[in-house]
């Protein structure tokens, strides 16, 4: 089974040289720590920055320079800054190669719910609906089951949707999954030490798994 950093590490292997990538809050943010040496990636922050650098050194924080999580950050050589409309313009026009975000639920036809729980204070969708509606390549990074032990890979989402029919790939602590165009989750890799049976038990949606699904190589 993978921990959060393990999920991030496995997802980092999906990033190709030359990609422009948008990372959501939570596990996706950790992916930045595991981008392989020699792979050149430009991180987008949807408040209006391409080329997000690491956190500033103590004492060098700039209140005018933050990321979409409102954290102080830095720029890098080659960074560019633009307004919020252009930022979502490049997302909508599919100039961003890969979006990695968290989810509360994903359905077997690729619907995603990650912004609202009825009865709880709703904070808003931020840029999530724009990202999932437009990105050509979205990977969901999430825990396989929720805190109540219920599967987050479902026949259909129970929570209010963020987007429909848009998720193609999911990485959880148990494995790597494709969402098939005809519906259903296809198990591509098992996490180290996890059996197909365990994954089947934790997956409420339709799961397709060969008997000899390979164990993933992390790192």
């Amino acid at each position: 089974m993978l921990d959060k950093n393990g999920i991030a590490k496995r997802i980092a292997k999906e990033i190709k040289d030359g990609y422009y990538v948008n990372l959501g809050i939570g596990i996706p943010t950790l992916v930045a720590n595991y981008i392989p040496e020699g792979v050149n990636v430009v991180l987008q922050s949807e408040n209006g920055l391409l080329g997000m650098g690491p956190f500033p050194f103590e004492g060098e924080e700039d209140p005018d320079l933050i990321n979409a999580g409102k954290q102080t950050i830095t720029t890098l050589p080659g960074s560019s800054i633009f307004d919020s409309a252009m930022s979502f313009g490049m997302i909508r026009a599919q100039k961003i190669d890969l979006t990695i975000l968290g989810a509360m639920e994903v359905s077997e036809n690729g619907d995603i719910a990650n912004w609202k729980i009825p009865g709880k204070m709703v904070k808003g969708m931020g840029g999530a609906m724009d990202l999932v509606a437009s990105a050509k390549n979205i990977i969901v990074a999430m825990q396989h089951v929720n805190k109540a032990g219920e599967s987050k890979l479902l026949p259909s989402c129970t929570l209010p949707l963020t987007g429909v029919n848009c998720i193609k790939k999911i990485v959880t602590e148990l494995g790597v999954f494709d969402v098939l165009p005809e519906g259903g989750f296809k198990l591509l890799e098992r996490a180290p030490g996890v059996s197909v049976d365990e994954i089947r038990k934790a997956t409420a949606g339709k799961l397709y798994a060969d008997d000899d699904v390979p164990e993933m190589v992390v790192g």
Partner: protein
Amino acid sequence: MINKVVANADEAIADITDGQTLMLGGFGLCGIPENCISALVKKGVKDLTCISNNAGVDDFGIGLMLKQRQVKKMISSYVGENAEFERQLLSGELEVELIPQGTLATRCLAAGYGMPAIFTPAGVGTEVAEGKETRNFNGKDYLMEYAFDADFAIVKAWKGDTAGNLIFRSTSRNFNPVMAMAGKITIAEVEELVEVGQLDPDHIHTPGVYVHRIFQGKDYEKRIEQRTVRSKEQG
């Protein structure tokens, strides 16, 4: 050159009245018009509809106006950091319309570009789409979203000149340029107000034609919401 300079925030917002719709620039607490927010709190106008990506925090930004119960409705994409906001929302005192962030920005852009509406895929198939016209282009569904109609846009820039030309700094640019274009009346507060001729025309982000009033701001606090740093040893 037309001179758009007013003395201060109080003068800039003097004719804002109860019940009007205001756009306020900024993302989180970054690039918010601090001086005008203070002046609005002092003036005490109420029943306002505020279009702003966020709603500030309890004791800063739009949170200060919420505390004084000046806001009737917020139109935002994310409002998570504010306990007073949550209280007013749950008690029904405050109306909130949550819309996707890109939709928010582009509805401002449309207003500034003279276009009545935009088509965006954001929200298709979700509750955001309820009651909205959907059009299919090249096999994909899009929602029609209207350009905003705001009485005032209030923005914060880094530098500006007396003709209203604006330059923004770093990610405090965010919503400011698109909101600056979208107000019936646009008010800009700037950290440094200069005479015409001092700014290179090639470096202007917002042409002065969009700006009606400009003033030299003061005492900027520029509060940081999430101070994240690394130590020199970590490298």
